[in-house]
């Protein structure tokens, strides 16, 4: 059984439907990517899974139906969501952002964990008292990821980390992401526009077009697919 099973997920805003019945699976320890162009419904997919927009269908997490649960309830079950645009809390310092990340934890090791993550992301460590809003995009993205890990998640929803970042920076972010997910054996559902890069890191992928999954398969397979190459890889 998969860690996450999405079946026939439908969602929209008001009268406008955005998703038309998606099926997605994520296995334990797996990094799965959902590819798609702007407006294809990627962000909505993540928001529907984490209960930020109302949706129909079924989302099973660890064998339990979670559709309709609030983000903080899911957090308690080990699912953490890094929103699009990074979602750093701009008026707070780096350290405070990390502390907010651990706010739902009841244990007393939050402060030592903060130090741990500052070590894992040395660039954050250098800027520990700087306000998040004044940092560069790449640093903010790393902070967002580090903050998500502060809640000790087993499963991470990650929304377009490459948005607005230079290619080199994006690669650095992905490298870090791979390291920490490997270290903590965290499963990830990633949505991305940058298919080329994402498929290098992902195990499997789905391709989303206008709210429907038009293709899925192992990363290498998708990388080799001509249509994908045309549409997303710019080849």
């Amino acid at each position, binding site marked *: 059984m998969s860690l996450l099973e999405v079946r026939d997920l439908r969602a929209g805003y008001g009268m406008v439907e955005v998703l038309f019945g998606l099926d997605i699976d994520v296995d334990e320890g797996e990094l799965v990517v959902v590819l798609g162009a702007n407006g294809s419904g990627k962000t909505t997919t993540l928001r529907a899974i*984490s209960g930020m927009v109302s949706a129909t269908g079924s989302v099973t997490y660890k064998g339990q139906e979670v559709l309709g649960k609030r983000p903080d309830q899911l957090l308690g079950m080990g699912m953490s969501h*890094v929103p699009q645009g990074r979602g750093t809390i701009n*008026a707070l310092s780096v350290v405070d952002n990390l502390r907010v990340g651990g706010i739902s934890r009841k244990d007393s090791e939050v402060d030592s964990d903060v130090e741990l993550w500052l070590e894992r992301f040395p660039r954050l460590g250098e800027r520990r008292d700087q306000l998040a809003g004044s940092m560069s995009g790449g640093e903010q993205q790393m902070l967002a990821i580090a903050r998500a890990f*502060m*809640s000790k998640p087993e499963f991470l929803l990650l929304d377009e980390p490459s948005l607005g970042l230079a290619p080199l920076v994006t690669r650095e972010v992905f490298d870090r992401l791979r390291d920490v997910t490997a270290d903590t054996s965290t499963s990830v559902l990633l949505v991305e526009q940058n298919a080329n890069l994402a498929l290098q890191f992902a195990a499997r992928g789905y391709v989303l077009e206008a709210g429907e999954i038009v293709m899925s398969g192992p990363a290498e397979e998708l990388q080799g697919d001509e249509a994908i190459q045309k549409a997303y890889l710019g080849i």
Partner: protein
Amino acid sequence: MRPSRKRIWGSDAKSLSGRGPPVNNFLEILVVGIGNGATYAMLGLGLVVIYRSTGLLNFASGELAMFSTFIVWTFWNLGFPMWLAILGGMLGGFLIGVLVHKVAVSPLGDPHERPLAVVIVTIGLFLGLNGAAQLIWGTVDKRLDPWFGVSQITVGGVAIAWQKIGAVVVLFVMVLLLWALFKFTKVGLSMRAVASNSESSALCGVSVQNMLMLGWGMAAGIGTLAGVFSAPNLGLGTNLMQLTLVFGFAAIVLGGFDSILGAVVGGFVVGILSSVVPQYITVFEKMPLAPAFILILAVLLFRPQGLFGSKDVARV
């Protein structure tokens, strides 16, 4: 044996005898200004707390303070000791603040998206609370004794009422508590996080609605103290805070919407300017608030976020 007295500028045709105050009363007037400033700072603090936790400006906060000061008076009038009455009033204010948030403000959604709706709803609350207070407590002003009594001490020839010293001390205790709350506690951290980015905070497991409610409640509780210190001077009536609120707003515009330090400095500057300047410059005699406003306009032109405010506030 009268010293000749002259205004600094502006001749007053109506005046037959020189009517400017002698220079040696500057200190006395300054003390008045500091006392008023402490009250404005308290009202300003309430506004800052709401702004910091919910990102909105509350036009009804003066009326909330007035309403909860009436609760203080009710307890005090029943024979409770003043400190207990004040606690009761703060608790009452807290509950009303929570209720107001839950019923009227929270359903509006993001205040930054709909500033007009926020203005209108808080104005509606302004009218409603004022009307309700008049229905409950009537139109006759009530007497609320000064918390710290009516006696004065003389320092260097200047008489200072204990009430004023009390106001400044209470203000600083409040600032200290607020500072500690925001700086050191999980709740304070959560409130700051929600104010800056409620979506991310929710994703981190912060209970956004509870924090917003807490912010409203705290602000209303703090406002109660502003009312408790204003009422002995102005008389406790339903219009206690209508104009005082404008002074409180002036304080935070000057200091910055989101700065606790700014509210305190702004409150004292507004209090001192509006007490001292009209004593020396005739044209301001009838408009004590005007000097503060002129300063504020000047500040806004160069630092739209206020003296101590953080930058993104200006983008409200």
